[in-house]
């Protein structure tokens, strides 16, 4: 098969597999202080920001890449990556959508998110990230009226330095683990959200991430602050172009909820998972952590993970404020040679804190799926409760499903309950569906959707529809 034919075949497999030709500005290959200064300089960052990055880099130099995870991967040469690339046409920021590079707009169209129409129709403000630089932000005016700040984090560093300085690194400090520290040193862009006191954000905030330039590690940084009594729902969705080479994605997401505030963070992740033989695909090593800082605050993570060659992430909640609530709803689907090691951490520090974990894992083909979670109730977290439910579904005997929960209870007045089951789709259910005219694939899709229902219904409407389709698409070819 000649190369062209191969490419066409590949494109057939992956619905969103395409990449646009835009000339990129790139930082020199490799990771050193000069590259960090280059990034900081090109973003016109203040001195304290550069200091933050360099501090993280100092720490990064002594850290070792962790190796306790279940999915092993070939060693990444961190000196062989580009740490910054931006579409050239972005050098001078366009003032409105019309000024955007038509090619960029085309890309989003293929993704199914034409900015102007869809955003308005769906009532979603979109802060689209193309590679590493935010391209356009819509609905800014409406949000500004309420005092809500929703902008690329690079802009926030310029315009709201006080807020950024106060909260950036307060949940994921520069001295954290390997990938988080790497991100702190070289992050390029991401979203910044601030909801002022008592404001209920009138719409779902949404960002579509794209990985574009070959060999570019994506280092997004998201910071969401919900001030006292406020509410925000944030959506993150991802698709990526087809690549033969493995791409590293190490984003950091920090959430801070003050007194009585609530943050709902939903993710649909559908990055390129590699081809049928496990070649290529994205490495998704993301650090997501939320801090329930104030009393009665709530953070809820919902994720649908269907893409990436390796997914390795644990969206966590630190329940510091009294009466705070942490929730984690997850669907992870692996097919072919995909691997996932995902779960959550619920750290109970305050009194009367509650957490709930619902995790659904589905593995098919030759894939491997691990739920790994921590529930830690400290001795001061009186009267706290946790409920955990992990269900796994296996399709075929070449895949694996594993559950590794860590449960620590140091408080006699707190209760922890954990349940896990592993099963397969029963012949009876399949037979029943097929008898009623569904083909085997549709039947599996239906049953799996039922299995995941508890999590899917946590998603906002716009996402739920997309996610349901995704569940079906992800399992194509796994039956029979």
């Amino acid at each position, binding site marked *: 098969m000649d190369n062209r034919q191969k490419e066409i075949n590949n494109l057939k497999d992956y619905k969103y597999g395409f990449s646009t030709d835009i000339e990129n500005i790139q930082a020199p290959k490799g990771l050193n202080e000069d590259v960090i200064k280059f990034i900081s300089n090109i973003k016109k960052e203040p001195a304290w920001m550069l200091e933050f990055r360099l501090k993280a880099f100092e720490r990064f130099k002594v850290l070792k890449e962790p190796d306790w995870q279940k999915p092993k991967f070939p060693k990444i040469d961190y000196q062989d990556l580009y740490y910054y690339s931006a579409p050239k046409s972005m050098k001078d920021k366009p003032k409105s959508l019309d000024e955007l590079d038509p090619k960029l707009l085309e890309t989003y169209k293929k993704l199914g998110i034409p900015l102007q129409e869809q955003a308005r129709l769906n009532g979603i403000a979109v802060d689209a990230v193309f590679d590493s630089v935010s391209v356009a932000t819509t609905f800014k005016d409406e949000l500004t009226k309420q005092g809500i700040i929703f902008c690329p984090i690079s802009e926030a560093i310029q315009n709201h330095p006080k807020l950024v300085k106060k909260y950036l690194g307060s949940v994921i400090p520069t001295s954290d683990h390997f990938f988080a520290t790497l991100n702190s040193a070289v992050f390029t862009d991401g979203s910044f959200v601030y909801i002022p006191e008592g404001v209920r954000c009138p719409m779902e905030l949404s960002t579509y991430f794209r990985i574009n330039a070959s060999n570019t590690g994506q280092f997004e940084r998201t910071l969401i602050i919900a001030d006292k009594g406020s509410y925000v729902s944030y959506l993150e969705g991802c698709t990526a172009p087809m690549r033969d080479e493995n791409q590293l994605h190490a984003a950091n997401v920090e959430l801070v909820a003050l007194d009585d505030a609530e943050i709902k963070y939903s993710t649909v992740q559908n990055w390129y998972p590699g081809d049928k033989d496990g070649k290529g695909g994205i490495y998704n090593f993301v650090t997501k952590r939320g801090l329930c800082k104030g009393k009665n605050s709530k953070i809820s993570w919902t994720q649908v993970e269907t893409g990436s060659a390796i997914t390795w992430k644990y969206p966590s909640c630190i329940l510091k404020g009294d009466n705070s609530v942490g929730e984690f709803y997850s669907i992870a689907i692996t097919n072919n040679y995909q691997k996932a090691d995902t779960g959550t951490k619920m750290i109970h520090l305050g009194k009367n804190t509650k957490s709930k974990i619902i995790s659904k894992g589905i593995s098919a083909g030759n894939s491997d799926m691990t739920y790994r979670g921590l529930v830690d109730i400290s001795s001061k977290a009186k009267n706290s409760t946790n409920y955990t439910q992990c269900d796994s579904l296996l399709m075929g005997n070449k895949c694996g499903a594993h559950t590794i*929960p860590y449960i620590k209870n140091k408080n006699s007045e707190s209760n922890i309950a954990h349940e896990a089951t592993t099963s397969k789709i029963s012949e009876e259910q399949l037979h029943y569906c097929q008898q009623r005219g569904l083909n085997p694939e549709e039947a599996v899709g239906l049953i799996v959707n039922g299995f995941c229902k508890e999590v899917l219904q946590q998603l906002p409407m716009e996402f739920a529809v997309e996610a349901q389709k995704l569940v079906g698409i992800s399992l194509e070819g796994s039956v029979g």
Partner: protein
Amino acid sequence: MKEQLQKDFDNSIKNLSLSQKDIEIKKFCLDNFIVKGFPNRKEEDWKFSDLNQIIKNNIGELSFYNDQASTNKVDTSVFVDGLEHNKIVFINGRIEKIDFEYEKKNQIEIIDQSETINEFKNSNSLSDLNNAFTNKCFKILVKKGYQLVKPLIIYHTTNSKIWSKNINLRLNFELDKDSSLRLIDLFNDTSEKNFLNIFYNFELKENAVLKNYKVDKFDNKNIKYSFNNIDQDKNSISETFILSSGSNFSKNEINCNLNGVYASAFVNGVFSLNNDKHHEIRSIINHLTENTKSYQLIKSVLDESSKAVYQGKIFVNSDAQKTDGYQLSKAILLNKESEFNAKPELEIYADDVKCSHGSASGSLNDNSIFYLMSRGLSYQQSRELLINGFLLDVVEKITDSEIKNLIKNMIGIKE
């Protein structure tokens, strides 16, 4: 520690008549241990119990040499009354007595295996330590079709003659086709601050039945590590019950390999802890072939600043279709200082299986206490009644009624 190990090792070797090759192997194990040292929290399996730290804090400097030349007097007062049984008596790590008085002599064979070193599949440094320092090792072979009439009680006693010592023990058991053995491990310590490192290996042939009860009831300041490896052939059954209560620190590891179809393994355990005791049970059940079954139930009652850890793993190989694996751990924390940690793990590579685990921990149920008190019981009585019922559930899982009653009496559980 290195010089001490080397010195004590040379001393123990002197007293043994070993071939050059065996000495080489022992040396190799010793070197392995010297490199690795005692397990610490950096190792995943020891995450919740840092043995290195525990030994340092509780014992300090250990010595590894045991003078096995002189015999110890067997104190018959420790023997269990009211239950006829066979005996093996260890005193300070030395085998003083092997007595199968109730059995047919030609059906049980006791083989001296001191000169063979067995490789254990688990790779922790304590097996190296055990290999390097065990000086007597026996294999007990129960012959084809023989079922022991009376249970076998292994008495582990230590007396005040020893202090800050490491004691290494090893026993191998082979249960031939259709045979059965009931075994009780009973600890009786009057010594303080010693580290006991005990390895058992069981080989169960077709249809063999092993009932393995480990009772650590009496308060003592020793540190114990016990590793049981159980290999099971077709249709065999192993039942393990652990009462974890007496020692200052104790870790019981059960590694069960279900190699034959229709083999089943049961692991039940009770933690009943007070003071600042720290106990752990780690079980690994490997379902390696189809139609195998395992069941685990662990219950803990933790008072004062005690700490219990349960790490249970069910592994299902891709060939092991139709596996049935179940695991449940429950804990009651009575004191705000007490702590329960669990890591119930599933690793599954086959799709047609039924595997589940559950874990719960919390305080005594206030409603239940209220219910009992409103019917005239005092708080203390209600509390005892609830704990009694909670633990009875596990003790009832013991299938041997004689031993069940013995253990009930020991814990003081009423029906």
